[in-house]
């Protein structure tokens, strides 16, 4: 948003030729009928109107392309007002001189006698300069608005791309693990293999279809976690002590899809794997009113490399995701002890 189009500042945000053609054609038509006595313009009216426009074009262009970009758009308002008023006074006087002296040399056969008093001339010049200033500012606003919308669209596209990228970082990782689990079950010719495949199928359906929506219901996300935990049990043969407790006021509470799964995935990956004898994962999910609290705690290996990984890439992805989809509406805390790794996530619904 801060990278405003420099053209807007310089005042070149429209087609100058087209803008001026329309402006001066309309001005000519309006003035011609104002200057004509009986709405049937004569040759003298055409000559006078063109001559009058010639004296007003210079101050208007001077205002549009010098005063406005130089003073008004750079917020030097006092300077703008002073130069604006001076322009009106000076060019009104030039108009008087033009019609008192120079017009006779250009059109010696015509008598331009009764036209405008000085006060009326100043009024006409003021209306013209004010009117064209307002038109210019309106057009600038129109282009500025258009540019701002375009920038917003681009930014949204960037966010979408970023989110899509983050999701795509989860999916292959998860799929690879899942296939390993089914492969292991199949090798042992276990009867649970078909159940595992069905659960994986449910998880994948969710990941592929539902996670592409802007928001999913908490009920669906819980179902995903339950499926995932059940699926992981096949792999780890119930060696770990995995608990998942939840208390929800509103099952239709909406959250961003696939936000919790990576945390559970990390716990299974590093917790269960880290200490095979004292493994545990405790998951609690509480939703009340506009808030959702998600806590996940698992046993923690002292292995330096793995601990770095645990708080590394996966959590960074989650943080990025949260900053985009829950800006200023989330808390994300990692609490590490010697033997436990705990993540607390708080989300506030918009």
């Amino acid at each position, binding site marked *: 948003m801060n990278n405003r189009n420099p053209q807007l500042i310089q005042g070149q945000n429209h087609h100058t030729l087209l803008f001026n053609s329309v402006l001066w054609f309309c001005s000519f038509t309006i003035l011609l009928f104002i200057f004509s006595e009986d709405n049937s313009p*004569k*040759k*003298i*009216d055409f000559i*006078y109107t063109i001559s009058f426009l010639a004296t007003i074009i210079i101050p208007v262009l001077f205002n549009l392309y010098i005063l406005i970009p130089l003073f008004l758009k750079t917020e030097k308002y006092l300077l703008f007002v002073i130069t604006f008023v001076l322009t009106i006074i000076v060019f009104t006087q030039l108009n008087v001189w033009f019609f*008192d002296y120079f017009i*006779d040399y250009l059109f*010696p*056969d*015509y*008598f*331009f*006698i*009764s*036209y405008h008093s000085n006060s009326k001339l100043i009024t006409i010049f003021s209306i013209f300069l004010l009117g064209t200033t307002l038109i210019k500012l309106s057009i600038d606003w129109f282009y500025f608005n258009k540019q701002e919308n375009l920038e917003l669209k681009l930014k949204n596209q960037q966010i979408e791309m970023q989110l899509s990228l983050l999701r795509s970082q989860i999916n292959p990782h998860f799929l690879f693990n899942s296939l390993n689990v089914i492969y292991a079950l199949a090798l042992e010719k276990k009867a649970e293999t078909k159940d595992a495949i069905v659960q994986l199928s449910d998880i994948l359906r969710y990941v592929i279809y539902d996670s592409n929506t802007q928001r999913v219901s908490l009920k669906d996300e819980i179902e995903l976690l339950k499926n995932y935990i059940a699926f992981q049990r096949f792999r780890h043969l119930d060696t770990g002590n995995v608990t998942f407790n939840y208390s929800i006021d509103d099952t239709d509470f909406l959250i961003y899809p696939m936000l919790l799964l990576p945390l559970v995935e990390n716990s299974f990956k590093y917790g269960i794997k880290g200490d095979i004898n004292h493994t545990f994962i405790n998951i609690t999910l509480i939703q009340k009113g506009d808030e959702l609290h998600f806590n996940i705690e698992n046993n923690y290996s002292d292995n330096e490399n793995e601990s770095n990984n645990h708080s590394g890439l996966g959590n960074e992805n989650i943080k990025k995701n949260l900053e985009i989809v829950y800006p200023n509406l989330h808390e994300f805390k990692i609490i590490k002890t010697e033997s436990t790794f705990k993540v607390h996530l708080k989300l506030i619904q918009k």
Partner: protein
Amino acid sequence: MKTFKPRLIILALLFFIINGCVVKSLFPFYTSNSIVFEKKFIGNWIDTEYAKWNIQPFQEVILKENNKANPSELDDEQFALYNKYEKAYVVYFEKDSTKSSFLAMSFKINNELFLDVTPIEDKEIDDNKKNNLLYKIHLIGTHTLAKFDILNDNQIDINWFSSEKLEKLLKENRIKIKHEKVGFWDTILLTASSEELEKFIKKYMDSKDEDKWKTDVEFNLTRVNE
């Protein structure tokens, strides 16, 4: 209605002869900056048709009409007029036993003399016309413009600006000047301001028309030695 037709035709002819030949204006053709007083104009003159012209300074006339010797003796209204028209003349015109009076003002534009003429009431003349009050209240004096040439101490030419010239300019749409068509005969009456009228005179003086001051209403005056 038939019986009125010949009279209307006669009236129309009279109008064109008397009324329609000079340019009339609601406002004076001069501004205060261009007024000049020409002493040579004062006196008695006779034109080529033996009409008598008596020209007197306005200030002398107003004192005489009010029977005052000094301007300070005039009432406020008369004193204001005395000062306002300090460089004006009163023209008494007498022809074929008819009399009329005018207020004239001479002024210079580009070193050429002009005369602005407008009818005024005169006590002596008005006293002789006892039945024209109702007629008179419908009238308003207009200003006319005349080219004024002092040839020498004893000869003056006065050429009124012909309305034909202005009508031609208006007809050809070569002039934009405030005017109205008034009265039964659509007489052109200039309603432009005095500044605009001066501007017009300047421009007209520069025009290429060699007969620009040609007119049907011209007078060659010769001084009458008394």
